[in-house]
C-alpha cells in the first residue's frame, strides 16, 4: 500500500502530523506489544492518559513514545467535569511540554459517552488558555459545530462507545459533521476492525483514532498494520470519488454492437 503520510499528510492546527491513523495506548498489555503495534501502525501521534505516578513502575511510556519518534497527545481520560479536565490538561502541558490535548469529559460511567455541556465549557477555557484542543464528542452535528465555534482545532466524534468495537453506528451523522466542518474530523472511539476505519475515511473523515481494536486484538501488530491499510484504502477511495448510489441498475456494458440486433 502506498505510504501517503508525506504526499497527503494529516494537518492539524497548521502542524503536519503525517499519518492519518492516530493510536491510543489504552489497553496495552505490555510495552513490547505496544511497541510492535505502534511501529506496525505507522502512526505519528499517540494518546496517553495522565495518572498518579506509580513508584513501583520500571518503564516510562514517555520514553517509549519518544524512542519511536511518536508525538504525545495527552488525554483527559477519566474526567467527569470541566474543572477536572482543565486541571488535567494543565498538568499534561507541564509534564509533556505540549499544548495539544485530547479533551475527554465523560457524562456516564457505563457508556463513557461525553457530557457535551461540560465538554464545551472545558474546551472554551482551554482554548482561552492557549491549548490546541482536540475534543472527543458524540456524533451530534450541533455539538460538533459548537466545539469548532469555540476554537477547537479538530472535532473527534465517536463511531460508537469506547471499547465497544461496534463501528460507526450513525454514518449519516458523521457525514453531516464532515460536510459542515472547517477543521479536521477524526473518527474517535468504537472502531472494531479495519473496515470500520476504512468506512470512516470514505465518509470524509481526515483521520481515525484507534485504541482497543488494536491493543486488545488477538495480534495487535497485525491489526495495527490492517488499520494502516484500511485508513489508506478509505482515504484513496474518498479522493477517487465514488459512484453515486442508484435505486436500480445502470448497465456497465453498452447495448450497441450486440449480436442479433
Amino acid at each position: 500500500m502506498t505510504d501517503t503520510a508525506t504526499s497527503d499528510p494529516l494537518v492539524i492546527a497548521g502542524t503536519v502530523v503525517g499519518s492519518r491513523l492516530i493510536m491510543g495506548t489504552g489497553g496495552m498489555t505490555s510495552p513490547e506489544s505496544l511497541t510492535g503495534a505502534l511501529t506496525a501502525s505507522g502512526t505519528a501521534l499517540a494518546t496517553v492518559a495522565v495518572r498518579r505516578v506509580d513508584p513501583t513502575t520500571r518503564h516510562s511510556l514517555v520514553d517509549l513514545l519518544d524512542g519511536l519518534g511518536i508525538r504525545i497527545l495527552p488525554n483527559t481520560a477519566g474526567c467527569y467535569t470541566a474543572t477536572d479536565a482543565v486541571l488535567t490538561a494543565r498538568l499534561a502541558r507541564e509534564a509533556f511540554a505540549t499544548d495539544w490535548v485530547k479533551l475527554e469529559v465523560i457524562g456516564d460511567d457505563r457508556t463513557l459517552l461525553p457530557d457535551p455541556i461540560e465538554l464545551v465549557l472545558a474546551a472554551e477555557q482551554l482554548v482561552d488558555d492557549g491549548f490546541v484542543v482536540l475534543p472527543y464528542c458524540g456524533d451530534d452535528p450541533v455539538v460538533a459545530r459548537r466545539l469548532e465555534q469555540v476554537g477547537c482545532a479538530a472535532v473527534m466524534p465517536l463511531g460508537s462507545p469506547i471499547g465497544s468495537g461496534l463501528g460507526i453506528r450513525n454514518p449519516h451523522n458523521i457525514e453531516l459533521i464532515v460536510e459542515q466542518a472547517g477543521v479536521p474530523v477524526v473518527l474517535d472511539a468504537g472502531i472494531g476492525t479495519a473496515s470500520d476505519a476504512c468506512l470512516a475515511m470514505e465518509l470524509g473523515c481526515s483521520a481515525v483514532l484507534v485504541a482497543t481494536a488494536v491493543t486488545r486484538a488477538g495480534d495487535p501488530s497485525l491489526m495495527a498494520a490492517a488499520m494502516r491499510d484500511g485508513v489508506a484504502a478509505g482515504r484513496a477511495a474518498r479522493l477517487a470519488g465514488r459512484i453515486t448510489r442508484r435505486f436500480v441498475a445502470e448497465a456497465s456494458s453498452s447495448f450497441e454492437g450486440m449480436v442479433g440486433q
Partner: protein
Amino acid sequence: MTRLDGDGAIGTGAEAPLTAPGSAPVPAPAMAVATVNGEPYDLSSGLTVSGLVAAWCPSPRGVAVAIDSEVVPRSTWDTTLIEPGATIEIVTAAAGG
C-alpha cells in the same frame, strides 16, 4: 498518631511530660504531614517539590505536580516548599486515551 501511656492504655496525641504542679504541659511537636497522591506523607523539614519528585520518580521527565489543584511550574520546583496539610498530586503518562 497513637502512643502507649505509662499504664499501658492507648493514648492519642502528645504525651504529658513531668512538670511542676500548676504549670501548663508543653505538647510535643506533631509530625508535619501532607497528602501525596491520596496518601498521608511525612514531610522532612525544608522539602521542596524537586525533593519530593526525586523521592517518588526515577526521573523528573514526563512528570507534573499540582499543589492544592494548582499546577506547579517546573521552573519553580527547586524553590517551592511543601507545606503541612497541602494536597499534592504527582502525575505522569499512563497507558490510556
